C-alpha cells in the first residue's frame, strides 16, 4: 500500500522534472537557432584587425543571413572559418570578391597581383603587419564565410557600427 503511494509520488516528481527539462531544452534550441541563422554575439581578439577591433578583445554582433543570400561584398568584416585550422574562426575584412584583381605586398619591395578565382574571396586583416590572411594562404572559398560583423557591443566606448 505504501509502495503504491511512493510510486505515485515518484511518478509525479519525474513528470515535473521532465516538463522543466523540456522547457530548458526548448529555450536552448531557440538560442541555438538564433545564434546560427540570425545573429550571434562573438568575442574577437588578436592584433590582426587593429585599429578597427582591439587587441584584447571586443564583443561584436555578427549576422548569419547575408552570406546565405549572397550579400557579402568588398569592405565587409566577416567571420571566416580558417582554411588552415578547421577549428578556428577568423575575423577579417573582404578585400576582393570573385573575379576581382587584388594587389598585395609580399615584402616591402615586392608586390604581387592575383585574380580571385570563381567562388572565392580575398580576405585581409586591417593590420597588415600582424595578420595571417589571404596573402599567406590564398583566396578562401566563399562557403567558409560564417557571418558578417555589423555592430560592436563591448567595450562601451566602442559601442556602435564599425567604421570602414
Amino acid at each position, binding site marked *: 500500500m505504501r509502495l503504491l503511494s511512493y510510486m505515485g509520488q515518484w511518478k509525479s516528481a519525474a513528470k515535473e522534472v521532465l516538463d522543466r527539462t523540456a522547457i530548458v531544452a526548448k529555450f536552448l534550441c531557440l538560442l541555438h537557432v538564433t545564434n546560427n541563422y540570425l545573429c550571434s554575439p562573438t568575442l574577437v581578439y588578436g592584433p590582426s584587425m587593429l585599429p578597427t577591433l582591439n587587441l584584447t578583445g571586443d564583443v561584436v554582433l555578427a549576422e548569419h543571413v547575408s552570406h546565405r543570400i549572397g550579400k557579402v561584398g568588398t569592405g565587409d568584416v566577416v567571420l571566416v572559418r580558417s*582554411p588552415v585550422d*578547421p577549428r578556428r574562426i577568423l575575423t577579417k575584412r573582404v578585400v576582393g570578391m570573385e573575379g576581382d584583381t587584388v594587389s598585395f605586398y609580399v615584402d616591402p619591395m615586392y608586390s604581387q597581383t592575383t585574380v580571385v578565382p570563381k567562388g572565392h574571396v580575398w580576405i585581409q586583416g586591417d593590420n597588415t603587419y600582424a595578420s595571417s590572411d589571404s596573402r599567406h594562404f590564398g583566396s578562401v*572559398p566563399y*562557403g567558409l564565410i560564417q557571418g558578417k560583423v555589423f555592430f560592436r557591443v563591448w567595450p562601451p566606448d566602442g559601442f556602435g557600427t564599425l567604421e570602414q
Partner: protein
Amino acid sequence: MVGLIGRLWNLQYKSIVKEASGKTLAVAKFFCVLHITNTYLCTFALAYGPSMIPTFNLTGDMFLAERLSIKFGKVGPGDIVLLRSPESPRKVMVKRLLGLESHSVTYVVDPMNSDRCDTIVVPKGHVWVEGDNIYNSRDSRQFGPVPYSLLEGKVFCKIWPPKEFGSLMKSGMKDPDL
C-alpha cells in the same frame, strides 16, 4: 440578442484559433526536430551526375550521410564525402576522399588525353577529393585541395535504387597509398 450571438461567435472563434495555433506549434516542433537531425546527425540526399560512376549512377541514387564523423575528425582516405563546392558555394557535391593533410597524393592529371601523373602533398587543414570516374569528374585535380571545413557529411549507406541498397564498399580501384 445580437450581443449574445456575438459572444457565442467570439467563443467559437477563440477555440478555433487556439486549436489552430496548437496544431501549428506541433508541426513547427516536428520540423525543428527534423532540421536538427538533418543538420547534426544524419541526412539523406540524391546524387546525380557522371563523376562517381560506378559507385553512383548517372541518373541519381539516394543515400544516407552522417554528420558526426566530420565534426570529430573521423574521416579518412577511401570515404565518400559530401562537400560544399569551392567554386559554387550553393552546390553540394559527392566525391571520394583520397588524402588528408600532409598526405602525399598521386593523381592522373588528364586521363582522357595523356597518362601523366602528378604528386602533391596536401597542405595543412585541407583534403584531396576525387570522383570515382576520373574521366568525367570535376574535383581536386581541377580546383586543388579543399579546406576541411567545407566537408559536410560522410556517406555510409545507399538507399535507392532498392537493388543496390546497402553500405558502400571502399573502392578497390583507388588505393590512396599507391
